[in-house]
């Protein structure tokens, strides 16, 4: 099991990870991080667990990960930005985590809108960000990360859609070292983005995406929109060319037409943004 002492040893960050709550088993690291944020936990507080008994994705979808093989943790952030600027956070977090994984493993990580991380079309990490807004002011956000590190066996329905760092590199990855890499990479890009604005994420995100000029299908609460990806708007929405007009979307489950893993998901009528995430 992780201990705070081991995780913090050699961690070269200013605030991220100054306090780390470690658990062998917890319902969800995001729930705990929200609870501590609600009672005033400082920016950079981390909650990490070997096992989540109710690990979650969006809208009640569950997140499954074998204990002792992966990384599941949440960070409390208190960025002093407007709620609209928060829209860029999912893109920013995806890029920051992709960079950290690349530095630690030399793998190439792709971004899929808005916040999925893929290696060779398969999902390697999931991100769930939850914020709290009162009177139009963002009080905090909790960034939850689930990274498939050394897990090599997935349930059969996820085998086509999921991968792990071990499956991709053929090597066991040191989870503690990876955790430190992510925290320090994340903190340095976060500090830069607070100074320069999160807009600088957009060009970086685009260079990591293979979605440009590809046809996609977006499902929004049962409403289906087809289009070709033309880029991102300045506030992070995906710009689609649909029937001669341009449309900017801020929500929906995205299926890239022509991607095998996505098509399998589409056939099964499952949201692709939810690999390793299953509907209960």
């Amino acid at each position, binding site marked *: 099991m992780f201990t705070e002492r081991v995780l913090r040893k050699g961690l070269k960050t200013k605030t991220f990870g100054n306090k780390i709550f470690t658990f062998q088993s917890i319902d969800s690291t995001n729930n705990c991080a929200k609870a501590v944020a609600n009672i005033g936990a400082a920016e950079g507080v981390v909650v990490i667990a070997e096992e989540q008994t109710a690990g979650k994705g969006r809208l*009640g979808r569950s997140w499954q990960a074998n204990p002792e093989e992966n990384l599941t943790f949440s960070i409390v952030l208190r960025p002093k930005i407007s709620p609209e600027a928060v829209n860029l956070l999912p893109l920013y977090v995806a890029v920051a985590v992709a960079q950290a994984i690349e530095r630690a493993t030399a793998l190439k990580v792709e971004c899929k809108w808005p916040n999925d991380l893929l290696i060779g079309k398969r999902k390697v990490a999931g991100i769930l960000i939850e*914020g709290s807004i009162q009177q139009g002011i963002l009080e905090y956000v909790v960034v939850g990360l689930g990274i498939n590190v050394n897990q090599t066996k997935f349930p059969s329905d996820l085998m086509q859609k999921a991968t792990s760092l071990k499956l991709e590199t053929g090597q066991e990855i040191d989870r503690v070292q990876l955790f430190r890499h992510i925290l320090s990479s994340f903190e340095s890009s976060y500090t830069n983005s607070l100074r320069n604005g999160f807009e600088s994420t957009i060009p970086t995100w685009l260079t990591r995406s293979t979605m440009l000029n590809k046809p996609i299908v977006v499902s929004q609460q049962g409403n289906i929109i087809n289009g070709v990806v033309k880029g991102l708007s300045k506030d992070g929405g995906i710009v689609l060319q649909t029937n001669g007009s341009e449309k900017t979307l801020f*929500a929906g489950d995205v299926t890239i037409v022509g991607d095998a893993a996505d098509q399998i998901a589409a056939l099964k009528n499952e949201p692709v943004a939810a690999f390793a995430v299953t509907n209960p």
Partner: protein
Amino acid sequence: MDIEYVTKLIELVSESKVDEIEIEEDGKKIRIAKTHQSAAAPTQTVYQVAPPQNSLPQPSVMPVAPVSQTQAPAVPAAQPAPAATGPKFHEVKSPIVGTFYRSPAPEAPAFVQVGGTVQKGSVLCIVEAMKLMNEIESDVAGKIVEIKVENGQPVEYDQVLFLIEPA
């Protein structure tokens, strides 16, 4: 919510300047509070589990049939006020463009119902944008008079979501 989680929360509250926290999850509510009996008494941590607030049967949807003006509503508190406008009610607006959700998950109970009371800081709904789930908190204590948006619908910036009658 397991015992290790609760124990750490108690530890955290004991060490912090906060006197009380309340967490609601999966219908279970936990309140952890420091009690100050007297100046001489040591700080004591109290741990309570309360039954879910919304265990009483409540209509989950607004009535479809129009209520006759002459007929007194049987359960006034649970009816949406027909003329819920004007300065009397506090408006809670959407701070962002996104999708409105009344509950944390499709099967989960709604955060609030018409007629229910809320405290300042109670979570009213989630507005999702870019897969970021933003919990919108009430900025007043009072009673929910009207919920202006259907679950799962898109909302615009500054769109009124709730009308609350301040306590």
